[in-house]
């Protein structure tokens, strides 16, 4: 026997509308689930022990980067992603990828890609799985060492997207014919030895040794991503179409959309960093000097890809492609009001 209460029609007035720290920030209103999941979640004081793996720092420490904010929660994700909304959005998005694979398999489209294009594709595209993987590692570092849940959470989801990209490239690779032996072993060899990737790989390996999470974001999100995505998923995809291969355009759009989505939080973060009332100017100096370096390096690195444009039957014009990529990059830097010399 159990006692239950029958609730008569009665609405109980809430005693408070939100968590105290949210009421203090936002006034007497209900908080969104994004705010509840994010704002002031990270521990901030009275840490018990110092890290044994690095001297002179606390567990969470604003000094993990030269970039600083007066209030780290002045940055909020414009997409308002928290775990559920992020996973639900990505799961839904990926359904179309699954359907597309199904469609291509049913029609045998992967087998129909011309051998000529396959050679081009295997050279520039499949090795990019290693680049995406490195992006994952780097963003995991930002997720650990960044300050404030609103920033680190975006980095975590971005890391997840990077890993997913690496795996999607792999999944495409699994579907392709293998005229010259193991597609992934070849791609790794290309990544490790082929001239078109060496400056890029050198860039990435050096970035992997950088500890400052702000610098990592500049090198990865504001430089690698901003150059590689338009180059691969727009310019090289256009070249594929000109050569009669439109099968991969779907994936290029998917990857490019993913890139644009992550640029939403990236651009917002840098906007906030530049506009900070106390640290804005210092941040600007750091961002402009680092970005001039990284954008310059990556711009040089992709020049090696000119070789790829010469490979197909219908050759592409790398000069025009490069101009487009630079235009894209400069648009983004211009939008942020950054003075960057590439």
């Amino acid at each position, binding site marked *: 026997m159990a006692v239950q209460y*029958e609730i008569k029609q009665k609405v109980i007035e*809430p005693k408070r509308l939100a968590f105290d720290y949210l009421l203090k920030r936002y006034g007497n209103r209900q908080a969104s689930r994004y705010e509840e999941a994010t704002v002031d979640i990270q521990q901030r004081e*009275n840490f018990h022990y110092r890290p044994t*793996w690095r001297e002179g720092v606390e567990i969470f420490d604003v000094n993990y980067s030269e970039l600083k904010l007066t209030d780290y929660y002045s940055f909020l994700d414009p997409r308002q992603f928290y775990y559920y909304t992020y996973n639900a959005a990505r799961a839904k998005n990926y359904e179309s990828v699954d359907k597309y694979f199904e469609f291509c398999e049913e029609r045998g489209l992967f087998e129909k890609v011309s051998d000529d294009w396959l050679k081009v594709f295997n050279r520039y595209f499949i090795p990019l799985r290693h680049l995406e993987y490195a992006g994952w590692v780097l963003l995991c570092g930002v997720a650990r060492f960044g300050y404030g849940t609103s920033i680190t959470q975006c980095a975590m989801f971005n890391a997840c997207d990077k890993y*997913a990209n690496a795996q999607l490239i792999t999944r495409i690779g699994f579907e392709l014919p293998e005229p010259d032996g193991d597609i992934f072993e070849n791609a*790794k060899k290309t990544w490790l030895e082929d001239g078109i990737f060496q400056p890029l790989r050198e860039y990435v390996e050096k970035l992997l040794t950088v500890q400052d999470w702000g610098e990592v974001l500049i090198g990865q999100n504001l430089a690698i991503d901003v150059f590689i995505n338009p180059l691969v998923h727009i310019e090289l995809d256009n070249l594929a179409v000109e050569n009669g291969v439109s099968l991969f355009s779907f994936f290029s759009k998917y990857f490019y959309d993913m890139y644009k989505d992550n640029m939403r939080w990236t651009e917002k973060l840098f906007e906030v960093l530049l506009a900070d009332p106390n640290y804005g100017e210092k941040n600007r100096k750091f961002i402009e000097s680092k970005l001039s370096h990284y954008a310059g390096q990556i711009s040089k690195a992709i020049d090696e890809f000119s070789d790829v444009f010469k490979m197909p039957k219908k050759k592409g014009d790398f000069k025009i492609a490069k101009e487009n990529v630079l235009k894209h990059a400069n648009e983004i830097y211009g939008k942020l009001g950054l003075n960057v010399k590439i």
Partner: protein
Amino acid sequence: MAKKKLTLAQKYHIYTRGLDWEPTYVSKKDIYPYAEYEGIKIKDWNKWEDPFRMTVEAYWKYQAEKDRRFYAILDGFIQNQGHLTLSDARYLNSIKLFIQGVTPLEYMAHRGFAFVARHLPGPGPRTAAFFQSMDELRHTQIEVHAASNFNKYYDGFHSMTHMHDRVWYLSVPKSYFDDAVTAGPFEYITAISFSFEYALTNLLFVPFMSGAAYNGDTPTMTFGFSAQSDESRHMTLGLQVVKFLLEQHEDNVPIIQRWIDKWWWRGYRLTSLVGAMMDYMLPKRVMSWKESFELYIEDQILEGLFRDLERYGIRPPLHMNQSIKEKEFLSHDVYWILFSFTFAAAFHSWIPKEEEMEWLAEKYPRTFNQYYRWRYEKAKEAKTPLPGDRFYYIGLPQLCQVCQIPMGFTNPDDPNNFVQRYVEYEGEIYHFCSDGCKWIFEQEPEKYVQAWLPVHEIYKGNCFAEPPKGPDDVVPQVLKWYNIQTDNFDYFVSEDYKNWKEWHKDMATVVV
């Protein structure tokens, strides 16, 4: 040009580890600078077997589905004012402790596993650590969202992150996880994936969550079980990591054994809070601490897990026998501590009702009536000037230097006395609640002397909202600094109780 046939394992290998490469432009040590200082030796990361083969796309799909179910249940509970159908508002005090104590640990675990995903040089375990980091963020957020609705109607939920960094009893869980994330990546993963996930989270997430279900709290049951379904992956990772490290090099065995010894006791002391929650704070109880301990630790861990690890030269944790001896004392000692200091806590406590004491006596036939019942009988009479018409220990307790629980653990070999241990280190005396905590200190004194001990910090004057105007103003200024409002004192003088009665007075009672 037929495609070659690959097994699932081979395919997964390509999806994950195939992505890694040996750097040539920089030294690997510069990419992973924290991989060697702990002394763990890895001969071949390729010997790692992926315990589960989860791709990101599968992860998105199943995790989104789990969360879709959780939020549907939560929204239904909110719409139906489900909090009114809880067994009793007393129940929520266990959830307050959970939200203030455990939820921030989920968050710390998220960041800790991001560290492992970044800094462990092996791509296999790193991938698993990455998914776990994602999961831990999930747990933080679903728990916060479940608490949000309770926060609107009840005290004790309003400032969990703020309190976690400041309030005395929350330094117990906080120091535990601070200890783990300040350790190197190998110790961290052994501590959390193996010792905590495999051995201890079951106690937290299974019988306790079953208790939540029994008390009418479906959102908590749902996040608990749903979180624990992720833990199944984490447990698999923990076991795999430890076996992998043990197989890689014989020099790893004593290091791992030391970590297992340390983290068993550290985690067990932390979990003692759950013992108090299960035995005292659930109005309707599913099983006792002792029963859960026997099922989940003695059967599953000692008879199962550690027999499996014998062949690697690993024995059960050093102080396991003490935990077994304590199983009829632990929850009573800890609840008594929480009860005594409730004037400075963000939850309520109460004297167990007569039928609850009967239950405790039945579950603990050798200890409850003998050593604990009288305390509550006295507590009814020993009045203090504070609200609640019962006993509080007015004063500040001495804390154990390692686990940071007030030194009130009964010696099972001499049940009329508490255990007290001390060590002199560099001219200072440090106090411990147990041989386990003392042993942990002695392994790494330079670490544990750094502890931010809440009572010491109060004495140092670091915990006041404003300088106290006199001795009577000390506690009020500390409480203000904690942001404790009407969250403290006995349940029966609380706003929670007053409101609960008010809300239920014109509701029809249906007996089913």
